[in-house]
């Protein structure tokens, strides 16, 4: 088929064709305006990148070689960082699961509960984990516990939404079949819904653990324990060789968590 023959020349397309071209031009113009205002608002100055290179090079020079002699100072904050993420993820899973069941349209027992659960999940997600950490540091003081609490609450939002979507997208035929055998609501849940979605939910939770390990590093900056807290202290004291050691350990933790999480998720798939 000759495609050229099916597409009329611009002059023959009439007002419809001209209108479509005008819309495209407006969209492109808007896009350019958005990018330009964004660059203006953030004071984007490419020349600063060039002059900043000298400062960065100086910090890198002072951070080398990493202070491996201080490795015994790193273990505990590193363990704290991982444990903040583990506690935060477990807490998030435990609290997100019942909320997700209420927030999944296909299994939620009632509309008010559905909207209530959706609202709670949305709120927990909308507030960033750093803000939760600041709130919990204020409430329970400095240390790893407020960090773990912050990750738990924020994870409710992230996990709750993904869990609910997973439940909503599962194949309902086995659930209907189980219901018709006369199984009670709780039995249908434990014998039908849980085995159907458990691998997906576990995969999501592991992915969240991986994310939480990254987050727990940053939470230390606001006093919520872990390597982040030590990193900030070392930077404040200009101990750049110690900073580089913390960064290396951070890198190892993040990569190891990512690889382990990916490995387990691949086995579950």
């Amino acid at each position, binding site marked *: 088929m000759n495609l050229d023959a099916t597409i009329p020349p611009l002059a023959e397309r009439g007002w419809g064709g001209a209108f479509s071209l005008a819309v495209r031009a407006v969209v492109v113009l808007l896009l350019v305006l958005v990018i330009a205002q964004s660059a203006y608002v953030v004071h984007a100055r490419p020349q600063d990148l060039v002059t900043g290179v000298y400062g960065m090079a100086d910090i890198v020079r002072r951070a080398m070689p990493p202070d491996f002699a201080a490795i015994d100072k790193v273990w505990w904050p590193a363990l704290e960082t991982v444990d903040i993420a583990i506690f935060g993820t477990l807490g998030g899973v435990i609290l997100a699961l019942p909320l997700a069941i209420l927030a999944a349209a296909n299994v939620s027992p009632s509309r008010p509960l559905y909207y209530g659960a959706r609202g709670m999940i949305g709120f927990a997600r909308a507030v960033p984990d750093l803000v939760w950490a600041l709130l919990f540091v204020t409430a329970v003081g400095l240390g790893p516990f407020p960090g773990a609490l912050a990750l738990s609450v924020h994870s409710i939002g992230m996990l709750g939404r993904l869990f609910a979507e997973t439940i909503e997208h599962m194949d309902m*035929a086995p659930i209907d*079949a189980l219901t*018709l*055998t*006369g*199984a*009670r609501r709780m039995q249908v849940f*434990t014998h*039908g819904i849980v085995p159907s979605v458990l*691998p997906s939910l576990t995969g999501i939770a592991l992915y969240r653990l991986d994310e939480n390990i990254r987050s727990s590093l940053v939470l230390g900056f606001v006093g919520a324990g872990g390597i982040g807290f030590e990193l900030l202290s070392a930077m404040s004291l200009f101990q750049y060789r110690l900073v580089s050691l913390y960064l290396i350990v951070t890198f190892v933790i993040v990569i190891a968590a990512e690889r382990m999480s990916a490995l387990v998720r691949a086995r579950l798939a």
Partner: protein
Amino acid sequence: MLRVEHLTMRYPSGKVALARFDLSVAAGELVVVLGGNGSGKTTLLRCITRMLQPTTGEIWLDGVDLAALSGERLRRARLPLAMIWQQASLVRRRTVLSNVACGALGRHGGLWTALGGLPAPERRAALYHLGEVGLADLAGQRAGTLSGGQAQRVAIARALAQQPQVLLADEPVASLDPEAADDIMRLLKQLAAEDNLAVLCVLHQVELAYAFADRVVGIRDGRMAFDLPTSDVPREAVRQLYLSEAA
């Protein structure tokens, strides 16, 4: 065993899917329902199981009108009624044995089953039912690894674990090859005869109906077209069921 009287189903859109439909299935009998797409076959089964609430009519099972019940009373009254579906509808990540044993959950209300456990006697019974459908050797296999024909046999074993008096089947061979379809229909016929089950089966395959049914019910536009012993069903009457679909 199962008796449907004056069953009418009118959807909110105004479409009448079933109009004063009468039907009965006796113990030991295999009744096949034939009809074109949208004729009301599946609606009939969904009303009998009360997945749909019929507009009017009665559904008598073991002396109880299912149409008049709801909630826990409906759940209990429906226990003698088992259903198999076009797709086997098994929990794919559980073993074949667990899927079958789940058919008995309705008889167990304890904490153990609520927490995901299965009573040991029901596991033994499930193995027996798997033997009945010829799949005892696959008991430990994951349900998701089965072929279509095997999965449908497991679904039948799950229905048997329910200890039903009536077995409903909604196009149980629709997605199977001819050989597997024959096997499933032979099994349903055998269950009706040997276990004294009342079997009501919706089919699209006319030849399977002629080969295995004791009685054939024709349905067209939600109304009974005929209800005859299989040997008395004229080919022309069956052809008429599908005429509007062809047009």
